[in-house]
């Protein structure tokens, strides 16, 4: 028997290494469940209702959470802010309390503002899972990324991972850095100076502005999308110039001394941060990441639900 040290999953920051390993070990078993020959679901959460509340667009994460919930036999309600009373001026707490009044046990929330999940966890009774809050954290993405590295190499400790792209606006980058460091990996960030946060050194990561140097150093490269929707000013002259300096193509990949692993949290902008022949190459584990996402989310929901009583 084992238990997470937290009642909510608000970010990687609140997790211990033991928590992460426990999530991984549980996710291993859920991967078995997803590959069962006939029935790919289990009844564990059959008496639970989970609300997926998305105040921001999402395809992969929402689908992945919904699938994870359904594979655990939970009842699921979906809520998208664009089609709700939020546009009529309702506050976040009111919205969520109204949903909870309909007897919902757990809330999976994505919100454009950093700290929204933490705020909610202090004001409502249900357990909260953060599915991305602004440019702050995206814990399940970091967990599934680290889980995919562990699956590929057997262990995360000692591996060298470079995160390339828009570090400044990326919640995936912050959660990944925290998660990988917690598990003993070496982390480097790479991108234009304007897209690297000022206080990045406080996180104990290396910084490199030359893509080829960064790729020669690493075992794994996690290529991030440029978050144009969060950029209110111009951070670089043009997308074309960004691609020339920080886009990963087959030519660069083949010129490296060793065979590195390529990851991407999606959605991919093909031809910008990564070319199609790299995204679809055998060095890419992008689709494994998506598959692992369901198992990781099942593990998180299962472990959180198990401790409610």
């Amino acid at each position, binding site marked *: 028997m084992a*238990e997470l040290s937290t009642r909510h999953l608000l970010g990687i920051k609140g997790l211990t290494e033991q928590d992460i390993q426990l999530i991984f070990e549980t996710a*291993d078993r859920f991967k078995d469940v997803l590959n069962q*020959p006939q*029935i790919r679901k289990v*009844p564990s959460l059959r008496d639970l209702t989970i609300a997926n509340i998305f105040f921001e667009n999402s395809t992969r994460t929402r689908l992945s959470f919904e699938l994870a919930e359904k594979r655990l036999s939970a009842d699921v309600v979906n809520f998208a802010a664009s089609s709700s009373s939020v546009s009529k001026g309702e506050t976040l707490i009111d919205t969520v309390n109204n949903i909870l009044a309909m007897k919902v046990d757990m809330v999976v929330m994505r919100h454009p503002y950093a700290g929204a999940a933490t705020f909610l966890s202090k004001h409502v009774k249900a357990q909260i899972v953060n599915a991305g809050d602004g440019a702050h954290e995206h814990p399940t993405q970091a967990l599934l990324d680290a889980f995919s590295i562990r699956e590929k190499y057997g262990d995360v400790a000692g591996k060298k991972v470079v995160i390339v792209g828009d570090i400044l606006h990326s919640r995936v980058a912050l959660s990944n850095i925290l998660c990988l460091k917690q598990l003993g990996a070496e982390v480097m960030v790479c991108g234009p100076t304007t897209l690297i946060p000022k206080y990045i050194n406080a996180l104990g990561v290396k910084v490199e502005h030359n893509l080829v140097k960064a790729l020669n150093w690493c075992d794994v490269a996690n290529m991030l999308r440029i978050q144009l929707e969060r950029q209110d000013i111009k951070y670089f002259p043009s997308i074309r110039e960004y691609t020339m300096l920080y886009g990963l193509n087959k030519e660069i990949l083949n010129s490296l001394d060793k065979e590195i692993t390529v990851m991407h949290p999606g959605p991919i902008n093909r031809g910008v941060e990564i070319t199609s022949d790299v995204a679809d190459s055998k060095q890419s584990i992008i689709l494994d990441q998506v598959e692992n996402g369901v198992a990781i989310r099942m593990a998180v929901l299962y472990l959180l*639900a*198990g401790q409610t009583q």
Partner: protein
Amino acid sequence: MQNLTLLDGQKFQITIQRLCRQLIENHNDFSETVLIGIQPRGIYLAKRVANELRKILPDSNIQQGDMVITFYRDDFRRRGAPLIPSETKMDFIIEGKKVVLMDDVLWSGRTIRAAMEAMLAYGRPQKVELLALVDRRYSRHLPIMPDYVGIDVDSIASQKVVVSWKETDGEDKIVLLSEIEK
């Protein structure tokens, strides 16, 4: 704690061999039968029985798997913390096969109920039987009865039956543990 050894040494081995002979009576060469040990402790019984059967029937293909039932338990969210499952190893489909579920100790029957549900993820068996090394009689919470029994034990709820295995614990032994009254 007071320990009472119920079975060990050669008697333990004789019991396993008797169970194997009883299985052969019903399953002939095991071509249509699979043996499933229930994780965590039932797998040692299933492995031992499978190995004994392979010695007795060297030309047969004895199929044996380990099955996790953790996600199918009926006490999830009713105990302190969730149980962390072990690994399922079932590299066969049970569709149309005769299944023999195996566990070391049969007590309330709830594990077996969960196992029957978990098993369906691997197909619809033609028939399911239950083999228990120890049957703690008169303690069932559900209408479940074993088809093959190593030994019957009459015990009360506060007692515990522990099965040790040569392969993992150093010796074959079944012990009844009782709390000493103060």
